[in-house]
């Protein structure tokens, strides 16, 4: 048995917990320095967790999205930047493994991801477009067998640390803004000229700097399916669900800290209910709502997966949007409750009850794909979509 196969014979959550332990150790340092969570990501690679969603014939483990979400939730409890980097990588893997089937180049690349435990970033945001995933200004230009692309990418999370970047663009220089393709470019096929520095309130370790991205590669590296289809059927849902899972992780760790604080207080004063106990009960109830929201979303995704009609349905898009908006708002309330429970010990950095990093990281949730944009999108769909009023459906 090789070392790699020994590791993959173990359960995914055990491997994730070991990686999370390493990530937790460096979480404060990553946050303070605003640097890439190298130790956590190396641990994930050592646990062979980068390609688990890929088909076994290409070297993966055929893990489903629910299993990957569980890994994200485990990591979220240790280091949100590691969890977010891992989640964003898996969003690219989900698109690549489902929307490039039969493409020789992409299948060989997926095999490499498993063999070499490669990290894949994405470049969708663009100057002049902002965060609207489904619009591009830049266009890929094809000459003979070569594809060339220049993109003023306002954000490429962990761009400097990735082994490859999946980039959206218009299909050709005359195409409409929404007529997009995605192309995978390998590290030695592009240059990154940094234009902005990611110095943020939270999620500091994702290093989502801005770059002028310039690349040249064989045209076979363009994904065969239109990006519109990838975005609608995979990317948006997978993003909301994996983010929701790691946000749950951040809130779950905050509640665990709140609970330790209340327990310690209860031990000191036997017979008395500590003042934070009621708040803790409230936080626990809210945390359960977040968990139920994410789990129900994952269940719906697994039911619809592979059925393009179900994935394209408005009701599915509304449900996924609701997971994103609901979880991202509620975790802030939960962590704030925990801050009230822990008081100054929670407000202070460097105590076992510190919650500053959790709160700052959690604040990114309502902004990454702005909740206002998502609510606007949902409200448009609700003009025609009929609400599913059944409990189980």
């Amino acid at each position, binding site marked *: 048995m090789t070392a790699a196969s020994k590791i993959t014979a173990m359960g995914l959550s055990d491997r994730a917990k070991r990686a999370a332990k390493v990530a937790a150790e460096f979480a404060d340092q990553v946050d303070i320095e605003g640097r890439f969570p190298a130790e956590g990501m190396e641990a994930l690679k050592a646990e062979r967790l980068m390609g688990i969603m890929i088909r076994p014939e290409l070297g993966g483990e055929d893990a489903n999205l629910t299993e990957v979400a569980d890994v994200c939730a485990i990591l979220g409890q240790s280091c949100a930047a590691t969890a977010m980097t891992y989640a964003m990588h898996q969003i690219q893997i989900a698109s690549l493994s489902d929307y490039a089937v039969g493409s020789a180049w992409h299948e060989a690349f997926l095999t490499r991801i498993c063999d070499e435990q490669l990290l894949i970033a994405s470049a969708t945001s663009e100057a002049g477009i902002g965060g609207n995933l*489904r619009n591009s200004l830049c266009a890929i230009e094809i000459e003979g067998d070569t594809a060339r692309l220049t993109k003023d990418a306002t954000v490429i999370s962990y761009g400097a640390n990735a082994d490859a970047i999946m980039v959206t663009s218009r*299909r050709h220089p005359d*195409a*409409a*803004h*929404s*007529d997009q393709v995605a192309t995978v470019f390998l590290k030695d096929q592009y240059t990154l000229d940094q234009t902005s520095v990611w110095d943020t309130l939270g999620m500091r370790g994702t290093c989502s700097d801005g770059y002028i991205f310039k690349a040249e590669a064989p045209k076979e590296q363009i994904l065969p399916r*239109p990006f*519109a289809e990838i975005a*609608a059927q995979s990317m948006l849902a997978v993003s909301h669900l994996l983010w929701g899972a790691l946000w749950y992780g951040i809130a779950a760790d905050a509640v665990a800290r709140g609970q330790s604080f209340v327990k310690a207080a209860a031990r000191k004063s036997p017979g008395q209910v500590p003042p934070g106990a009621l708040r803790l009960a409230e936080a626990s109830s809210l945390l359960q709502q977040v968990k139920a929201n994410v789990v129900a979303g994952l269940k719906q995704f697994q039911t619809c997966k592979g059925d*393009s*009609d179900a994935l*394209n*349905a*408005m*009701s599915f898009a509304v449900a996924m949007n609701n997971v994103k908006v609901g979880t991202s708002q509620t975790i802030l309330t939960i962590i704030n409750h925990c801050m009230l429970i822990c008081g100054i010990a929670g407000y202070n950095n460097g105590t076992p009850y510190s919650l500053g990093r959790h709160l700052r990281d959690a604040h990114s949730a309502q902004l990454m794909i702005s909740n206002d944009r998502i609510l606007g*999108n949902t409200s*448009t*769909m609700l*003009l*025609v*979509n*009929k609400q599913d009023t059944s409990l189980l459906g």
Partner: protein
Amino acid sequence: MKQTIRTLLGNHGNLPIAIEDVADGADLYDTGLSSFASVQVMLALEEEFDIEFPEHLLNRKSFSSIEAIEAALSEILKEQAA
């Protein structure tokens, strides 16, 4: 029916090119139809034909081309007549 669809798409579709230049089978999303605009066109069709799109037709496919919209409308009108 096709002409009515074209008129409503022209008025509500917010397409970057003239509706006369869009072929019946052309992919409307590739042409630049946004999801917001597709809902506006859907509402206009509901108003024009006095119908309501059922849940199973509320997806991207129903609005992927002028032909697809026509097929969806025919299905709804046929069900209504039955």
